[in-house]
Protein backbone atom coordinates (compact mmCIF):
# COMPACT_ATOMS: atom_id res chain seq x y z
CA UNK A 1 0.00 0.00 0.00
CA UNK A 2 1.15 3.52 -0.81
CA UNK A 3 2.06 5.60 2.24
CA UNK A 4 -0.06 8.73 2.67
CA UNK A 5 1.72 11.86 3.83
CA UNK A 6 -0.16 13.72 6.50
CA UNK A 7 0.39 17.46 6.98
CA UNK A 8 -0.64 19.36 10.10
CA UNK A 9 -0.47 23.07 9.20
CA UNK A 10 -1.07 25.66 11.91
CA UNK A 11 -1.48 28.69 9.67
CA UNK A 12 -3.65 29.49 6.67
CA UNK A 13 -0.56 30.65 4.77
CA UNK A 14 1.05 27.21 5.11
CA UNK A 15 -2.25 25.56 4.17
CA UNK A 16 -2.54 27.68 1.02
CA UNK A 17 0.84 26.33 -0.13
CA UNK A 18 0.05 22.73 0.78
CA UNK A 19 -3.31 22.68 -0.96
CA UNK A 20 -1.60 23.60 -4.25
CA UNK A 21 0.65 20.52 -4.16
CA UNK A 22 -0.18 17.78 -6.62
CA UNK A 23 -2.44 15.01 -5.28
CA UNK A 24 -2.62 16.56 -1.83
CA UNK A 25 -6.15 17.09 -0.49
CA UNK A 26 -7.70 18.76 2.54
CA UNK A 27 -9.02 16.53 5.33
CA UNK A 28 -11.90 17.97 7.36
CA UNK A 29 -14.02 15.21 8.85
CA UNK A 30 -12.81 12.52 6.46
CA UNK A 31 -16.21 10.93 5.79
CA UNK A 32 -16.11 11.89 2.11
CA UNK A 33 -12.51 10.77 1.68
CA UNK A 34 -13.38 7.37 3.12
CA UNK A 35 -15.84 6.87 0.26
CA UNK A 36 -13.07 7.43 -2.29
CA UNK A 37 -10.23 5.25 -3.42
CA UNK A 38 -7.10 6.76 -1.97
CA UNK A 39 -4.75 5.33 -4.60
CA UNK A 40 -4.58 8.71 -6.35
CA UNK A 41 -3.97 10.59 -3.11
CA UNK A 42 -0.38 11.33 -2.05
CA UNK A 43 -1.12 13.43 0.97
CA UNK A 44 -3.82 14.75 3.28
CA UNK A 45 -3.89 18.08 5.08
CA UNK A 46 -5.41 17.80 8.55
CA UNK A 47 -7.31 21.05 9.08
CA UNK A 48 -8.33 20.76 12.73
CA UNK A 49 -5.57 23.06 14.00
CA UNK A 50 -6.72 25.94 11.80
CA UNK A 51 -9.16 28.64 12.93
CA UNK A 52 -11.89 27.36 10.63
CA UNK A 53 -14.31 25.94 13.17
CA UNK A 54 -16.04 29.21 13.99
CA UNK A 55 -19.55 30.39 13.34
CA UNK A 56 -19.96 34.16 13.28
CA UNK A 57 -23.51 35.48 13.51
CA UNK A 58 -24.06 39.19 13.02
CA UNK A 59 -27.25 41.10 12.30
CA UNK A 60 -26.66 40.87 8.55
CA UNK A 61 -24.67 37.69 7.95
CA UNK A 62 -23.90 34.21 9.18
CA UNK A 63 -20.39 33.02 8.37
CA UNK A 64 -19.66 29.34 8.91
CA UNK A 65 -16.07 28.06 9.01
CA UNK A 66 -15.20 25.34 6.52
CA UNK A 67 -14.48 22.68 9.13
CA UNK A 68 -17.60 23.31 11.20
CA UNK A 69 -19.53 20.08 11.37
CA UNK A 70 -23.26 19.71 10.80
CA UNK A 71 -23.51 19.22 14.57
CA UNK A 72 -21.69 22.52 15.23
CA UNK A 73 -24.04 24.40 12.90
CA UNK A 74 -27.17 22.88 14.43
CA UNK A 75 -26.12 23.56 18.02
CA UNK A 76 -24.99 27.13 17.29
CA UNK A 77 -28.04 28.15 15.25
CA UNK A 78 -30.40 26.49 17.74
CA UNK A 79 -29.29 29.12 20.26
CA UNK A 80 -30.34 32.07 18.11
CA UNK A 81 -32.78 30.77 15.49
CA UNK A 82 -34.10 27.22 15.96
CA UNK A 83 -36.35 27.72 12.91
CA UNK A 84 -33.40 28.48 10.62
CA UNK A 85 -33.52 26.49 7.38
CA UNK A 86 -30.03 25.09 8.02
CA UNK A 87 -31.24 23.59 11.31
CA UNK A 88 -34.19 21.99 9.50
CA UNK A 89 -31.98 20.65 6.69
CA UNK A 90 -29.16 19.29 8.78
CA UNK A 91 -31.03 18.03 11.83
CA UNK A 92 -32.15 14.82 10.12
CA UNK A 93 -29.17 14.42 7.84
CA UNK A 94 -27.11 11.23 8.35
CA UNK A 95 -27.03 10.46 12.09
CA UNK A 96 -25.68 12.03 15.28
CA UNK A 97 -22.11 10.62 15.17
CA UNK A 98 -21.80 11.36 11.45
CA UNK A 99 -23.14 14.88 11.96
CA UNK A 100 -20.22 15.31 14.36
CA UNK A 101 -17.77 14.51 11.52
CA UNK A 102 -19.29 15.77 8.26
CA UNK A 103 -17.99 19.28 7.62
CA UNK A 104 -19.62 22.13 5.76
CA UNK A 105 -16.60 22.73 3.52
CA UNK A 106 -16.28 19.06 2.60
CA UNK A 107 -19.99 18.80 1.84
CA UNK A 108 -19.89 21.81 -0.48
CA UNK A 109 -16.77 20.56 -2.28
CA UNK A 110 -18.20 17.06 -2.79
CA UNK A 111 -21.88 17.97 -3.33
CA UNK A 112 -23.27 14.41 -3.38
CA UNK A 113 -26.75 14.02 -4.98
CA UNK A 114 -28.24 13.26 -1.57
CA UNK A 115 -26.87 16.46 0.01
CA UNK A 116 -29.22 17.94 2.62
CA UNK A 117 -27.05 21.06 2.84
CA UNK A 118 -26.74 22.33 -0.71
CA UNK A 119 -30.39 23.15 -1.41
CA UNK A 120 -30.44 25.58 1.50
CA UNK A 121 -27.11 27.18 0.57
CA UNK A 122 -28.22 27.64 -3.06
CA UNK A 123 -31.58 29.05 -1.97
CA UNK A 124 -29.84 31.43 0.43
CA UNK A 125 -27.40 32.65 -2.30
CA UNK A 126 -24.44 31.62 -0.18
CA UNK A 127 -20.95 32.87 -0.90
CA UNK A 128 -17.97 30.55 -0.65
CA UNK A 129 -14.55 31.79 0.48
CA UNK A 130 -11.61 29.95 -1.07
CA UNK A 131 -7.95 29.74 -0.12
CA UNK A 132 -5.17 28.58 -2.43
CA UNK A 133 -4.95 28.81 -6.21
CA UNK A 134 -8.42 30.38 -6.49
CA UNK A 135 -8.38 32.57 -3.37
CA UNK A 136 -11.43 34.81 -3.17
CA UNK A 137 -15.18 34.92 -2.60
CA UNK A 138 -17.52 33.21 -5.07
CA UNK A 139 -21.30 32.76 -5.31
CA UNK A 140 -22.11 29.14 -4.56
CA UNK A 141 -23.81 28.67 -7.94
CA UNK A 142 -20.55 29.69 -9.66
CA UNK A 143 -18.53 27.37 -7.45
CA UNK A 144 -20.81 24.44 -8.33
CA UNK A 145 -20.63 25.10 -12.08
CA UNK A 146 -16.94 25.92 -12.41
CA UNK A 147 -14.89 22.82 -11.55
CA UNK A 148 -11.68 24.84 -12.01
CA UNK A 149 -12.51 26.61 -8.77
CA UNK A 150 -12.32 23.27 -6.95
CA UNK A 151 -8.75 22.46 -7.85
CA UNK A 152 -5.92 23.26 -5.47
CA UNK A 153 -8.26 25.29 -3.30
CA UNK A 154 -9.76 24.97 0.15
CA UNK A 155 -13.16 26.24 1.29
CA UNK A 156 -12.40 28.27 4.40
CA UNK A 157 -15.94 29.51 5.02
CA UNK A 158 -19.40 30.00 3.63
CA UNK A 159 -21.39 33.17 4.19
CA UNK A 160 -25.15 33.65 4.01
CA UNK A 161 -27.39 36.63 4.58
CA UNK A 162 -29.14 36.56 7.93
CA UNK A 163 -32.68 37.19 6.70
CA UNK A 164 -35.97 35.95 8.14
CA UNK A 165 -37.59 33.41 5.80
CA UNK A 166 -40.51 31.09 6.27
CA UNK A 167 -38.87 27.80 5.47
CA UNK A 168 -39.24 24.04 5.23
CA UNK A 169 -37.21 21.08 4.09
CA UNK A 170 -38.31 17.69 2.78
CA UNK A 171 -36.22 14.52 2.31
CA UNK A 172 -37.51 11.72 0.09
CA UNK A 173 -36.43 8.64 2.04
CA UNK A 174 -37.69 5.12 2.67
CA UNK A 175 -36.11 4.69 6.11
CA UNK A 176 -34.79 7.35 8.47
CA UNK A 177 -31.16 6.48 7.82
CA UNK A 178 -31.58 6.57 4.03
CA UNK A 179 -29.74 9.04 1.88
CA UNK A 180 -32.55 10.98 0.20
CA UNK A 181 -33.39 10.33 -3.46
CA UNK A 182 -34.21 14.01 -3.70
CA UNK A 183 -34.87 16.80 -1.29
CA UNK A 184 -36.72 20.10 -1.50
CA UNK A 185 -35.84 23.35 0.19
CA UNK A 186 -38.51 26.04 0.36
CA UNK A 187 -37.95 29.65 1.41
CA UNK A 188 -40.86 32.08 1.40
CA UNK A 189 -41.45 35.70 2.28
CA UNK A 190 -44.96 36.92 2.82
CA UNK A 191 -46.51 40.37 3.14
CA UNK A 192 -50.18 41.36 3.53
CA UNK A 193 -51.37 37.79 3.01
CA UNK A 194 -49.46 37.36 -0.26
CA UNK A 195 -46.26 35.62 -1.30
CA UNK A 196 -43.67 38.34 -1.68
CA UNK A 197 -40.64 36.22 -2.62
CA UNK A 198 -39.86 32.52 -2.93
CA UNK A 199 -36.88 30.29 -3.52
CA UNK A 200 -37.54 26.65 -4.28
CA UNK A 201 -34.66 24.25 -4.85
CA UNK A 202 -34.69 20.52 -5.50
CA UNK A 203 -31.45 18.59 -5.02
CA UNK A 204 -30.92 15.15 -6.55
CA UNK A 205 -32.16 15.86 -10.07
CA UNK A 206 -30.26 14.82 -13.22
CA UNK A 207 -28.53 18.22 -13.24
CA UNK A 208 -27.71 17.82 -9.50
CA UNK A 209 -30.10 20.59 -8.48
CA UNK A 210 -32.98 22.48 -10.06
CA UNK A 211 -34.53 25.80 -9.19
CA UNK A 212 -38.28 25.49 -9.59
CA UNK A 213 -38.73 28.83 -11.37
CA UNK A 214 -42.14 28.01 -12.83
CA UNK A 215 -43.56 27.37 -9.37
CA UNK A 216 -41.85 30.49 -8.04
CA UNK A 217 -43.58 32.51 -10.80
CA UNK A 218 -46.92 30.92 -9.91
CA UNK A 219 -46.45 31.87 -6.25
CA UNK A 220 -45.29 35.45 -6.83
CA UNK A 221 -47.80 37.96 -5.40
CA UNK A 222 -50.37 35.20 -4.99
CA UNK A 223 -52.74 35.41 -2.05
CA UNK A 224 -51.88 32.58 0.34
CA UNK A 225 -55.42 31.17 0.48
CA UNK A 226 -55.51 30.84 -3.31
CA UNK A 227 -52.43 28.61 -3.53
CA UNK A 228 -53.58 25.42 -5.20
CA UNK A 229 -51.43 22.28 -4.66
CA UNK A 230 -52.49 20.78 -8.00
CA UNK A 231 -51.30 23.94 -9.81
CA UNK A 232 -47.94 23.49 -8.07
CA UNK A 233 -47.84 19.80 -8.95
CA UNK A 234 -48.34 20.38 -12.66
CA UNK A 235 -45.54 22.97 -12.74
CA UNK A 236 -43.02 20.51 -11.34
CA UNK A 237 -41.21 18.94 -14.29
CA UNK A 238 -38.04 17.54 -12.83
CA UNK A 239 -35.67 15.18 -14.59
CA UNK A 240 -34.30 12.35 -12.51
CA UNK A 241 -31.74 9.78 -13.56
CA UNK A 242 -29.16 7.43 -12.08
CA UNK A 243 -29.01 3.99 -10.55
CA UNK A 244 -31.11 4.96 -7.52
CA UNK A 245 -34.06 6.06 -9.69
CA UNK A 246 -36.23 3.19 -10.97
CA UNK A 247 -39.08 5.26 -12.34
CA UNK A 248 -38.27 8.94 -13.07
CA UNK A 249 -41.92 9.80 -13.79
CA UNK A 250 -43.07 8.44 -10.44
CA UNK A 251 -40.29 10.33 -8.64
CA UNK A 252 -41.29 13.55 -10.42
CA UNK A 253 -44.93 13.01 -9.42
CA UNK A 254 -43.89 12.43 -5.81
CA UNK A 255 -41.69 15.54 -5.96
CA UNK A 256 -44.65 17.62 -7.15
CA UNK A 257 -47.00 16.36 -4.45
CA UNK A 258 -44.42 16.82 -1.71
CA UNK A 259 -43.58 20.34 -2.89
CA UNK A 260 -47.20 21.38 -2.56
CA UNK A 261 -47.31 20.00 0.97
CA UNK A 262 -43.98 21.60 1.83
CA UNK A 263 -45.07 25.07 0.71
CA UNK A 264 -48.06 24.78 3.06
CA UNK A 265 -45.72 23.64 5.83
CA UNK A 266 -43.38 26.60 5.21
CA UNK A 267 -46.35 28.97 5.38
CA UNK A 268 -47.24 27.54 8.78
CA UNK A 269 -43.65 27.98 10.05
Amino acid at each position, binding site marked *: *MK*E*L*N*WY*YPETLADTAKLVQQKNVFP*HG*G*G*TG*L*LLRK*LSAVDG*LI*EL*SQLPLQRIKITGDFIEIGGICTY*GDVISELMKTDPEHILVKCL*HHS*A*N*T*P*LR*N*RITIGGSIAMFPPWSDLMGALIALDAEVKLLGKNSGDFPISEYIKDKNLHSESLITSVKIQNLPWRSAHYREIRT*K*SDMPIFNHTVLLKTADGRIDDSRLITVGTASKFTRLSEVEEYLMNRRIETINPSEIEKRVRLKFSGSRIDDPEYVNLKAGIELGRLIQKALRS
Partner: protein
Amino acid sequence: MNGKFVVNGKQYQFNFNSDERLLFTLRNHGFKEVKNGCLEGECGACLILLNGKPVNSCQVFTASAIGKDIKTVKGIGNLHEPHVIQEAFVEAGAVQCGYCTPGMILATYALLQNKPKPSESEIKNALDGNLCRCTGYVKIIEAVKLAAERLNGVKENKALYGEK
Protein backbone atom coordinates in the same frame (compact mmCIF):
# COMPACT_ATOMS: atom_id res chain seq x y z
CA MET B 1 3.18 6.38 11.46
CA ASN B 2 2.96 6.88 15.18
CA GLY B 3 1.35 9.37 17.49
CA LYS B 4 0.26 10.10 21.03
CA PHE B 5 -3.36 9.71 22.07
CA VAL B 6 -5.19 10.05 25.35
CA VAL B 7 -7.52 7.09 25.79
CA ASN B 8 -9.75 6.95 28.87
CA GLY B 9 -7.56 9.53 30.56
CA LYS B 10 -4.26 7.71 29.98
CA GLN B 11 -1.61 8.67 27.43
CA TYR B 12 -0.59 6.10 24.79
CA GLN B 13 1.77 6.00 21.83
CA PHE B 14 0.30 3.99 18.94
CA ASN B 15 1.82 2.77 15.69
CA PHE B 16 -0.60 2.70 12.76
CA ASN B 17 -0.80 2.79 8.98
CA SER B 18 -1.26 6.17 7.33
CA ASP B 19 -4.72 5.22 5.98
CA GLU B 20 -5.83 3.31 9.08
CA ARG B 21 -9.17 3.93 10.69
CA LEU B 22 -9.24 4.72 14.40
CA LEU B 23 -11.49 1.70 15.03
CA PHE B 24 -8.71 -0.69 14.01
CA THR B 25 -5.96 1.23 15.81
CA LEU B 26 -7.94 1.05 19.03
CA ARG B 27 -8.78 -2.63 18.61
CA ASN B 28 -5.17 -3.47 17.65
CA HIS B 29 -4.03 -1.88 20.89
CA GLY B 30 -6.41 -3.82 23.10
CA PHE B 31 -9.52 -1.66 23.19
CA LYS B 32 -11.75 -4.51 22.03
CA GLU B 33 -14.81 -2.87 23.57
CA VAL B 34 -14.89 -0.73 20.42
CA LYS B 35 -16.86 -3.04 18.13
CA ASN B 36 -16.38 -3.52 14.41
CA GLY B 37 -19.79 -3.27 12.77
CA CYS B 38 -20.75 -1.85 9.37
CA LEU B 39 -17.62 0.22 8.56
CA GLU B 40 -19.94 2.78 6.97
CA GLY B 41 -20.89 4.96 9.91
CA GLU B 42 -24.41 3.57 10.02
CA CYS B 43 -24.55 1.18 12.98
CA GLY B 44 -22.73 2.92 15.84
CA ALA B 45 -21.09 -0.26 17.18
CA CYS B 46 -17.70 1.45 16.97
CA LEU B 47 -18.87 4.66 18.60
CA ILE B 48 -16.37 6.49 20.80
CA LEU B 49 -16.20 9.99 22.23
CA LEU B 50 -13.60 12.08 20.44
CA ASN B 51 -12.90 15.27 22.36
CA GLY B 52 -16.22 14.62 24.10
CA LYS B 53 -18.34 14.18 20.98
CA PRO B 54 -19.80 10.87 19.80
CA VAL B 55 -18.28 9.78 16.48
CA ASN B 56 -18.00 6.50 14.60
CA SER B 57 -14.38 5.42 14.94
CA CYS B 58 -14.70 3.60 11.60
CA GLN B 59 -15.18 7.00 9.98
CA VAL B 60 -12.07 8.59 11.50
CA PHE B 61 -8.56 8.34 10.10
CA THR B 62 -6.26 7.60 13.03
CA ALA B 63 -3.78 10.21 11.76
CA SER B 64 -6.45 12.88 12.15
CA ALA B 65 -6.99 12.00 15.82
CA ILE B 66 -3.39 12.40 17.02
CA GLY B 67 -3.26 14.29 20.32
CA LYS B 68 -7.00 14.06 20.81
CA ASP B 69 -8.96 12.79 23.78
CA ILE B 70 -10.67 9.44 23.24
CA LYS B 71 -13.19 7.80 25.51
CA THR B 72 -14.38 4.21 25.09
CA VAL B 73 -17.11 2.57 27.14
CA LYS B 74 -14.49 1.28 29.59
CA GLY B 75 -13.56 4.88 30.29
CA ILE B 76 -16.86 5.64 31.97
CA GLY B 77 -17.13 2.57 34.21
CA ASN B 78 -15.95 -1.00 34.69
CA LEU B 79 -17.04 -4.24 36.34
CA HIS B 80 -15.89 -3.06 39.78
CA GLU B 81 -17.38 0.39 39.44
CA PRO B 82 -20.04 0.44 36.74
CA HIS B 83 -21.44 3.77 35.62
CA VAL B 84 -25.07 4.56 36.43
CA ILE B 85 -25.87 4.29 32.70
CA GLN B 86 -24.30 0.83 32.49
CA GLU B 87 -26.31 -0.30 35.53
CA ALA B 88 -29.50 1.15 34.05
CA PHE B 89 -28.98 -0.75 30.78
CA VAL B 90 -28.63 -4.03 32.68
CA GLU B 91 -31.59 -3.35 34.97
CA ALA B 92 -33.90 -2.27 32.16
CA GLY B 93 -33.08 -5.38 30.14
CA ALA B 94 -31.67 -3.19 27.37
CA VAL B 95 -28.83 -5.62 26.65
CA GLN B 96 -29.37 -8.76 24.63
CA CYS B 97 -26.49 -9.83 22.39
CA GLY B 98 -24.60 -6.78 23.68
CA TYR B 99 -22.80 -5.91 20.46
CA CYS B 100 -24.41 -2.47 20.17
CA THR B 101 -24.28 -1.76 23.92
CA PRO B 102 -20.90 0.03 24.18
CA GLY B 103 -21.99 2.47 21.48
CA MET B 104 -25.46 2.88 22.97
CA ILE B 105 -24.02 3.62 26.40
CA LEU B 106 -21.54 6.18 25.10
CA ALA B 107 -24.24 7.88 22.99
CA THR B 108 -26.38 8.03 26.15
CA TYR B 109 -23.45 9.37 28.17
CA ALA B 110 -22.88 12.16 25.62
CA LEU B 111 -26.60 12.98 25.58
CA LEU B 112 -26.95 13.16 29.37
CA GLN B 113 -23.86 15.35 29.67
CA ASN B 114 -25.59 17.98 27.55
CA LYS B 115 -29.24 17.30 28.37
CA PRO B 116 -29.70 15.83 31.85
CA LYS B 117 -33.48 15.56 31.38
CA PRO B 118 -34.01 14.61 27.75
CA SER B 119 -37.43 14.13 26.18
CA GLU B 120 -38.19 10.87 24.40
CA SER B 121 -37.67 12.51 21.02
CA GLU B 122 -34.31 13.89 22.18
CA ILE B 123 -33.33 10.38 23.28
CA LYS B 124 -34.33 8.94 19.91
CA ASN B 125 -32.45 11.67 18.10
CA ALA B 126 -29.29 11.15 20.18
CA LEU B 127 -29.37 7.40 19.53
CA ASP B 128 -30.23 7.73 15.83
CA GLY B 129 -26.76 6.52 14.88
CA ASN B 130 -26.93 3.34 16.96
CA LEU B 131 -28.64 0.29 15.56
CA CYS B 132 -29.80 -2.64 17.68
CA ARG B 133 -31.06 -5.77 15.98
CA CYS B 134 -32.27 -7.54 19.16
CA THR B 135 -34.22 -5.32 21.49
CA GLY B 136 -36.51 -3.20 19.33
CA TYR B 137 -35.27 -0.12 21.21
CA VAL B 138 -38.10 0.04 23.78
CA LYS B 139 -35.91 -1.25 26.60
CA ILE B 140 -33.01 0.91 25.48
CA ILE B 141 -35.10 4.06 25.67
CA GLU B 142 -36.36 2.95 29.10
CA ALA B 143 -32.74 2.46 30.20
CA VAL B 144 -31.80 5.98 29.10
CA LYS B 145 -34.76 7.40 31.03
CA LEU B 146 -33.82 5.36 34.11
CA ALA B 147 -30.20 6.52 33.91
CA ALA B 148 -31.30 10.13 33.54
CA GLU B 149 -33.61 9.84 36.55
CA ARG B 150 -30.86 8.33 38.68
CA LEU B 151 -28.19 10.80 37.58
CA ASN B 152 -30.55 13.69 38.27
CA GLY B 153 -31.44 12.16 41.63
CA VAL B 154 -27.75 12.02 42.57
CA LYS B 155 -27.29 15.64 41.47
CA GLU B 156 -30.40 16.80 43.31
CA ASN B 157 -29.33 15.00 46.50
CA LYS B 158 -25.90 16.56 46.27
CA ALA B 159 -27.45 19.98 45.80
CA LEU B 160 -29.75 19.35 48.79
CA TYR B 161 -26.82 18.58 51.05
CA GLY B 162 -24.63 21.35 49.63
CA GLU B 163 -22.12 19.01 48.00
CA LYS B 164 -20.40 19.89 44.72
